[in-house]
Each structure stands twice: as C-alpha cells, then as structure tokens.
C-alpha cells in the first residue's frame, strides 16, 4: 500500500501502476460515494422511517430503472472501495505471508458472493 501525503509522494512510492491506480480510485470513488451514500441514507433513513422499508416498498422502488442504477452504482463502487480499504488493513495487520493469502482469499470470496447476490437481486425484478 501507499503511505503518501500528496499525489507526488504517491507516485514516487507506488511499486506498481496498479497500486497507484487503486490510490487514485479510492479518491475518485470516495468523492462520488459521498453524494450517493449520504443521499441514500437521507432518503431511506432520515426522511422516512426505517420501518417503511417493507417488502412492497422495496420491490416498488427497485422496479424503477433509475433506482436500480443508483443502487447498483452504490453497490459496485462502495464494495470496490471498501474491499480495497480492507485490503490495506489486512496488509498492515496480517504479517505472515501464508496467513495473509488465506485471509485475503476468504475475504475476497465472501465479498464476491455478496456482490453477486446483490446484483442478481437488483436485476431479478
């Protein structure tokens, strides 16, 4: 991972292009997610009660293509952002190489399954 304080530092420290691209991705996706996620929380938790998320309400909402797109964008971007963030943590705290490989394999598998589940759910109605 990159421990940089500025973009110039990041470019110097990055061992690979992929690592630098992830560093850039975290900033760009973060900027987009600020609006998407705070908007989502405001609309579905603060503006209305959480108990209003009944089966019928959820199905009605997700039938509309605009909400499908909005929610899938959150799902994809926030999972990529979150999984990459957790990868930084794993690399920091799981010090032994074989353990790190196992932890990552299991973690990526679970995240992949949940992403697939969410995507199938969104596009099945």
């Amino acid at each position, binding site marked *: 991972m990159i421990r*940089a*304080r*500025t*973009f110039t530092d*990041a470019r110097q420290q990055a061992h690979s292009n992929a690592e630098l691209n992830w560093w850039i991705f975290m*900033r760009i996706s*973060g*900027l987009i*997610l*600020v609006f998407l*996620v*705070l908007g989502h*929380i405001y609309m579905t*938790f*603060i503006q209305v*009660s*959480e*108990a209003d*998320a*009944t*089966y*019928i309400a*959820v*199905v009605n909402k*997700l039938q509309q293509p605009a909400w499908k797109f909005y929610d899938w964008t959150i*799902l994809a971007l*926030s*999972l990529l952002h*979150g*999984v990459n*963030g*957790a990868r930084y*943590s794993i690399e920091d705290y799981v010090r032994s190489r074989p353990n790190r490989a196992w932890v990552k394999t299991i973690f990526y598998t*679970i*995240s992949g399954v*949940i*992403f697939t*589940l*969410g995507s*199938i*759910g969104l596009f*099945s*109605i």
Partner: protein
Amino acid sequence: MYRGREGQWAWVLHRLSGLAILAYLLVHVISISLFMFGEQAYMAVHHTYELPIFSLGLIAVTAGVVYHSLNGLRIIVMDFTGMGVLYQRQMFWGVIALTLLATAYTSFVVIGRLLGGEA
C-alpha cells in the same frame, strides 16, 4: 504532524469507521436481497429491525458514514492541494464539528420519531 496528534486520530477513526461501514454494507446487502425469496423471508428478518435498538444502531452507522465522508474529503484536499497539509489539523476539527452536528440532527429526527411511536 503525525504521531499522537490530530493526524493520527483522524487516520485511526477513518480506518475504524471504514471497516465498520464495510461490515454493515455486507450484512445490509444480504438482508435486502432476501426479497428475492419472497415477502415472508424478507419480512421475517425486517420485523426485528423495528426494535428501537436497530434505529439507534443506524444513527451510529450514519455518524460513521458522515465522518468517513468528510474526512475522506479532507484527505483529498491534503493530497491534491499545497495548502491542505498546512491546515489538516483545523480541517480535522471542522470534520469532527460537522459530524457531531449531523449526528445530533439525525438523533433528533430519529429519536423524536421513536418517542412519537412510529418506529
């Protein structure tokens, strides 16, 4: 700039809030996806969310997301502008103040609704 000062606390809080939000997100996707298996499966789980403790939990999730968002913007300002690193301490306290303000507003709305009887 870093060890034991505002910069380090900002970093610790960013990492903890990030991991907490990810944990919530994964469970949230599973829980919402239950609608694929019909109304009964979905509502069986969602009825338990009407307990007040889950509303209070969501206030905590909101606080975590607001902090992570605003501190993320602080990081972006630090990374891409020359002045960012110079004012990172002031920006950290600004982030904390705005997070407290947003959390107070969320609590006011949600707890008011709980006390008013609509879960």
